């Protein structure tokens, strides 16, 4: 989410300071040894690590604890781990983009080495200047690395100790909710009327709060504050607000807006990733359409924040479950007209982020309500609010055409349309977003610049502002784009009569990519026929890719399809992964497992459609995510590498969905044109193949 290169730091400051309606641009200082000085401290025989990243399940606190222990040469018991407030450390950028190990491990190790050497020299007090020691001289990256460290918060999690924003409990704390029209925040909505007198008769009601500060997007908000959380439901029902909403839309309009074939009929698309000359008129060997719907982050923790406003001290203290505590501070300070130093933000452990907890939503609501009533207020979104007012992965529509020559892909044309991810409409007003259209949206493009060597490639896309809020979702564009690429490449392999793995290797120059692909083949016994079961067909598929030009993954999937019902089960997944030097293998494996389950969800489970001018889903019944009985055994292989550590949080997204979709194609012949895969489409494909 590098927005600064578009606005420029200097311009952002002067021009945003002038008007509170403009969005706050997140501060993105590069982590360096100087910043790292504030991350590690020593006093009287004990060390404190102020973790400069948000802890949201990637367990970066555990990884950085290991770096610190390795470099300091101490046992973990000597080190206290703290999630620092906005006053404890220098400003750091938000926790996005799987960058934490790549960018923070080195400066942390440098700061720890500086501290270790100072202690050894007998110095026990004062501020040290961290030295930019090269990586090869640091113990944290040397052969002796790997101090066994207990998972940070592990014991608290299994014992149910308070860790998350909604677990904060203060004496006299109140509970808040902001009611809005049940409509997309992209539609202007205002309050028509509400039964205020009836609501005020409820003894649990503390306040009804109105004002422009509660507006989010084009959605007016009416705040209610109550003495118990359950009273919020009752008061909302009594208040029965009626709203005026400008306009509406249905799913067909969303699909029509991004329909790639309709756009291609109008000519070239606006943004070019690759612009080689290809022959437009001749026949194509492969011509695939793939539509991928919107999807929710569906973190099990709904967004939550606690805000405490002290009128006498004129300070606001907040506990948030956000991927960027400093951004929350700046947004809340701006909206409430406070100096940023009067806002103190404590980042709590986040109950799942996945790119979704990057904007200020529930945090602003809690701050405004606390400010209005002069007390501590907790706000946790309902699941319905999560679906209706959160932002989601944008839907996308793809057309891929391939021409083969001499057993290779000769010409490749990938055209797609999607909505904004980095310059999200959930954060930017429409006019500002139009500016960004000049530069494209690197988040939407991610993964489309496919890793295979072909003679000519045209890769182009359109950005479409949709009436739904869209934004970053694990892997950004890489999930959908790589899925489309891998399905088409697989179809090309089949068309050329070549093994899917060997066909890919023929087009790969990057040795790290070739290595994970070969290794996944070896581990999975690629080429063996899966065992046959009467009444079922089985198939295996492979996919691979590169994430952010730094991390590599290859996945093999095996699926079984019930011939009678068309039900698809993934029965085994193998993943080979290379993210450079592995600091903590178990944590990397966990990230691979998560990515595999997300790929499974993309292909077989998840969809979020529009209905009646909003996201149609209001519960997990309407928009399911994978369950334990969907998840097969997974085998993860990590490549040991001397390359600098890159990232693991999103890498296997490049291959997980593709391998599953390709396994389904191998089993049934179905090249799904829309996701998630429907049983009816499977049965139709089986019938065409004469197998049902």
């Amino acid at each position, binding site marked *: 989410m590098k927005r600064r290169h578009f606005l420029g730091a200097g311009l952002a400051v002067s021009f945003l300071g002038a008007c509170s309606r403009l969005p706050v641009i997140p501060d993105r200082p590069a982590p360096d040894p100087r910043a790292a000085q504030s991350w590690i401290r020593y006093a009287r025989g004990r060390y404190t690590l102020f973790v400069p990243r948000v802890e*949201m*399940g*990637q*367990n970066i606190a555990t990884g950085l604890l290991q770096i610190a222990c390795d470099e300091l040469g101490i046992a973990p018991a000597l080190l206290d781990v703290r999630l620092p407030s906005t006053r404890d450390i220098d400003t750091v950028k938000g926790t996005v983009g799987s960058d934490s190990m790549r960018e923070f491990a080195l400066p942390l190790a440098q700061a720890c080495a500086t501290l270790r050497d100072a202690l050894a020299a007998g110095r026990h007090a004062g501020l040290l200047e961290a030295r930019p020691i090269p990586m090869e001289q640091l113990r944290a990256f040397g052969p002796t690395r790997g101090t066994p460290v*207990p*998972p940070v*918060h*592990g*014991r608290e*999690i*299994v*014992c*149910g*100790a*308070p*860790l*998350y924003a*909604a*677990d904060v*409990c203060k004496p006299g*704390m109140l*509970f808040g909710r902001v009611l809005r029209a049940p409509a997309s925040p992209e539609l202007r909505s205002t309050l028509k009327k509400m039964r205020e007198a009836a609501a005020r008769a409820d003894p649990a009601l503390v306040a009804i709060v109105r004002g422009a500060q509660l507006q989010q997007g084009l959605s007016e908000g009416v705040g209610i504050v109550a*003495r*118990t*959380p*359950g009273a919020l439901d009752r008061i909302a029902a009594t208040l029965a607000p009626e709203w005026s909403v400008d306009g509406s839309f249905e799913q067909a309009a969303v699909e029509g807006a991004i329909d790639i074939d309709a756009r291609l009929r109008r000519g070239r698309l606006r943004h070019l990733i690759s612009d080689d000359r290809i022959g437009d008129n001749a026949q194509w060997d492969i011509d695939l359409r793939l539509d991928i719907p919107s999807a929710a*982050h*569906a*973190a*099990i*923790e*709904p967004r939550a924040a606690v805000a405490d406003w002290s009128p006498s001290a004129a300070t606001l203290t907040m506990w948030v479950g956000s991927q960027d505590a400093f951004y929350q501070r700046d947004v809340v300070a701006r909206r409430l007209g406070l100096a940023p130093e009067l806002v103190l933000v404590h980042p709590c*452990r*986040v*109950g*799942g*982020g*996945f790119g979704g907890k990057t904007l200020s939503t529930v945090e602003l609501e809690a701050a405004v309500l606390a400010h209005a009533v002069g007390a501590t207020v*907790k706000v*946790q979104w*309902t*699941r319905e609010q999560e679906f209706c007012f959160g932002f989601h992965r944008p839907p996308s529509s793809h057309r891929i055409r391939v021409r083969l020559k001499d057993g290779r892909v000769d010409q490749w044309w990938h055209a797609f349309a999607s909505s904004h991810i980095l310059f999200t409409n959930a954060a930017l007003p429409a006019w500002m977003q139009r500016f960004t259209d000049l530069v494209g949206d690197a988040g939407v493009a991610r993964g489309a610049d496919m890793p295979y060597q072909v003679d000519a490639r045209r890769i182009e896309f359109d950005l479409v502002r949709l009436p739904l809020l869209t934004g970053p979702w694990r892997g950004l564009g890489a999930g959908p784009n790589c899925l489309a690429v891998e399905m088409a490449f697989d179809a090309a392999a089949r068309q050329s009569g070549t093994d899917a793995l060997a066909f890919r290797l023929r087009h790969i120059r990057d040795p790290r990519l070739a290595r994970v692909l070969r290794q996944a083949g070896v581990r999975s016994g690629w080429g063996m026929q899966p065992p046959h079961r009467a009444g079922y067909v089985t198939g295996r598929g492979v996919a691979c890719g590169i994430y952010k030009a730094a991390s590599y993954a290859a996945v093999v999937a095996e699926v079984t399809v019930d011939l009678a019902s068309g039900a698809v089960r993934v029965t085994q997944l193998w993943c080979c992964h290379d993210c450079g030097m592995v600091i903590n293998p*178990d944590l990397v494996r*966990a990230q691979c*497992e*998560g*990515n*595999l*389950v*997300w790929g499974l969800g993309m292909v077989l489970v998840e969809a979020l459609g529009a209905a009646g001018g909003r996201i149609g889903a209001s*519960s*997990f*019944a309407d928009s399911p*995510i*994978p*369950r*334990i*009985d969907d*998840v097969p055994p*997974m085998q993860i292989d990590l490549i040991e590498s001397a390359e600098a550590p890159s990232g693991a949080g999103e890498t296997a997204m490049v291959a997980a969905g593709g391998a599953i979709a390709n396994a389904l194609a191998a089993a049934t012949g179905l090249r799904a044109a829309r996701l998630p895969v429907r049983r009816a489409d499977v049965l139709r494909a089986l019938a065409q193949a004469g197998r049902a």
Partner: protein
Amino acid sequence: MKILINGEPRAVASAWQGETLLACLRDHLGLMGTKFGCGVGLCGACTVLLDGTATRSCLIKVADLGTSAITTIEGIAAADRLHPLQQAWLDERVPQCGYCQSGQIMSALSLLRHCPLPSDAQIDAALAGNLCRCGTQQRIRLAVRRAAGQLGEP
């Protein structure tokens, strides 16, 4: 009014008696281990044991509890030792974000009480209503089996 939680009678103030058990546990009694995830019984984050059986605490009102005994995640460890399920969860390094895990452990506890040596299929059936978004399902299966083995030892 009093309710029996983790073997102790706990007083519930009148303002909280109309609340869900989940809200009462968390914001009145300060037992934060039980989580809010969806409010309609579809995610399992709020799972507690009601007389030994896994139950969604977001769906029960405090006033309807009667004399039922409630067990929460805070009540399953012995004074000086984690419950074998909790230990297995640490040994298998199950948690990623951790938010759903107390509900997972409580559902697993209910399963092991009724089915001491479950197969993977039985684990899947018992835990299918406990969602995890991070993708810890494989490790959950391993942890339940590990704990079942330990519980089965004399």
